[in-house]
């Protein structure tokens, strides 16, 4: 049975230095409270996969020196501009980048979900994304006639880290429409979850809730983290904190400003 941890730090124990960690896109319920706790713990050498893109989360982890390899399709603060720590890490060469395209990451995770060694994907032929991914293969489709197609190796994370509206005491997690969270959990060896609250009942007992539930047998640990996606949004629950994101964009524009941000919001956590 999954552990229902009383401290977020305890729930995060399966996330070790150097592990292959998959996290969801910026609007799917990003475990930001957990991300701050990992930075505080001083996690190192992550192979971070953002499915399929990221914003604040990847930028923070990169800036704080937690990331060795980043695999994603884009990192951006959206309306608040480029992701400054990401951009600097790439131009200075301090992280290893594996550029992808969104459906390739989805397909590679689905390959792990299905226990197959690879998945084919259309597109990509003739792009430099393909050219720089030596781990992807271009073959002649066995079903085509001189029809090149890309094969992506399965991507099997050590841990999937997600945030969701609620979980029950059996570790079942209600994820709603954010079904990529289920694919992440299916694909990963272990899944760590933070939730807004505990549901008083068993989610699988209600057919309507069950339709949006990740079964507990995929889940390693759960911690309660109210507003755990802040300052990013949690779909159908709260919007992004635009003022805070603008403040981040300003502060993270310089190394010093970013250090101040960490001090204020990650190590000290003065605001929320």
């Amino acid at each position, binding site marked *: 049975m999954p552990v229902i941890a009383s401290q977020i730090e305890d729930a995060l124990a399966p996330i070790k230095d150097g592990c292959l960690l998959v996290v*969801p*896109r910026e*609007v*799917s319920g990003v475990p930001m409270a957990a991300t701050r706790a990992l930075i505080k713990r001083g996690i190192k050498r992550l192979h971070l996969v953002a*499915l*399929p*893109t990221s914003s604040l989360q990847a930028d923070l982890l990169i800036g704080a020196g937690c990331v060795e390899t980043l695999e*994603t*399709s*884009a*990192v*951006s603060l*959206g*309306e608040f501009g*480029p*992701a400054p720590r*990401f*951009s600097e890490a*790439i*131009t200075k*060469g301090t992280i290893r980048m594996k*550029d*992808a*395209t*969104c*459906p*390739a990451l*989805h397909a590679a995770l*689905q390959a792990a979900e299905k226990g197959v060694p690879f998945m084919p*994907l*259309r*597109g*990509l*032929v*003739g*792009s*430099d*994304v*393909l050219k*720089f991914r030596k781990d992807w293969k271009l073959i002649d489709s066995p079903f*085509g006639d*001189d*029809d*090149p*197609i890309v094969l992506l190796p399965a991507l099997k994370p050590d841990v999937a880290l997600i945030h969701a509206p609620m979980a029950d005491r059996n570790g079942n997690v209600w994820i709603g*429409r*954010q*079904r*990529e*969270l*289920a*694919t992440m959990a299916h694909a990963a060896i272990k899944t760590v979850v933070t939730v807004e609250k505990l549901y008083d009942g068993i989610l699988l007992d209600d057919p309507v809730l069950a339709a949006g539930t990740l079964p507990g047998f995929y889940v390693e640990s759960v911690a309660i983290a109210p507003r755990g996606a802040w300052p990013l*949004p*949690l*779909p*159908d*629950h*709260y*919007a992004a904190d*635009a003022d805070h994101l603008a403040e981040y964009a300003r502060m993270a524009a310089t190394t010093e400003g970013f250090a101040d941000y960490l001090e204020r919001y990650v190590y000290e956590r003065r605001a929320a």
Partner: protein
Amino acid sequence: MNGAPPDIRDEELLSSVIADLIGDSRHVAVGNASPIPATAALLARERGKGKPYVSLLQSRKHNFFTDGARELFDCAGQGRIDVFFLSGGQIDGEGNINLVSIGEYDNPKVRFPGSFGSSYLYYVVPKVILFRVEHSRRTLVEKVDFISAPGVSAPNVFRTGGPVALVTNRCFFSFDPKRKRFRLDSVHPEHTVEEVIENTAFDFDRPAQVPTTTPPSPATLKLMRETVAPQLAEVYPQFAAQVFGVGKTAFTD
């Protein structure tokens, strides 16, 4: 040249041009960080009385997907997405787009966010509309430094989609995949062909007489400002406030 009424903003003109391009489609999808295409798509839907379906990827209200973040791409692979929008840090004359970096890939001078879904969607969405507000030799280059997705492919490559047009703050180009070239279809009010040539690093076709882009009608403007802008504010609050003066509401998603 017909001068546009002075109260039409660039963003409104571009949205109107793109809405016309969308035309009679079933399903238009708009990706991340694309406020002008989002405006255009919502405008097209208002004019079409609910048709096309519009999926704004970052929205909850304007999003019909229930199979997670992969559904857009699966849906495009099924041939169900008719129109999509892409931009590029660089776009070249063969329709190649670069969303990754300037300089050597392994040692770039400038890094952009990344390719997003372009390396797939550019191949499988029949009508991809390129948009890049900043029209300069820095953005419209002779050859991109990194190909996130190519404008055209060899005949043996599976490809049911690709670029049909490029809209900038100066003009509107259509794209001819057979000739692998853009064609200058119209120049926006208050801009000139000479200016377009001067600010474009790639060569392109053009008719002897280049028409002026038709500005949005008063009815279209009214629809955009009064009906579309408030919808837009959910996903692009900054943009909606800046362009349409829609106040930030205490919106909860």
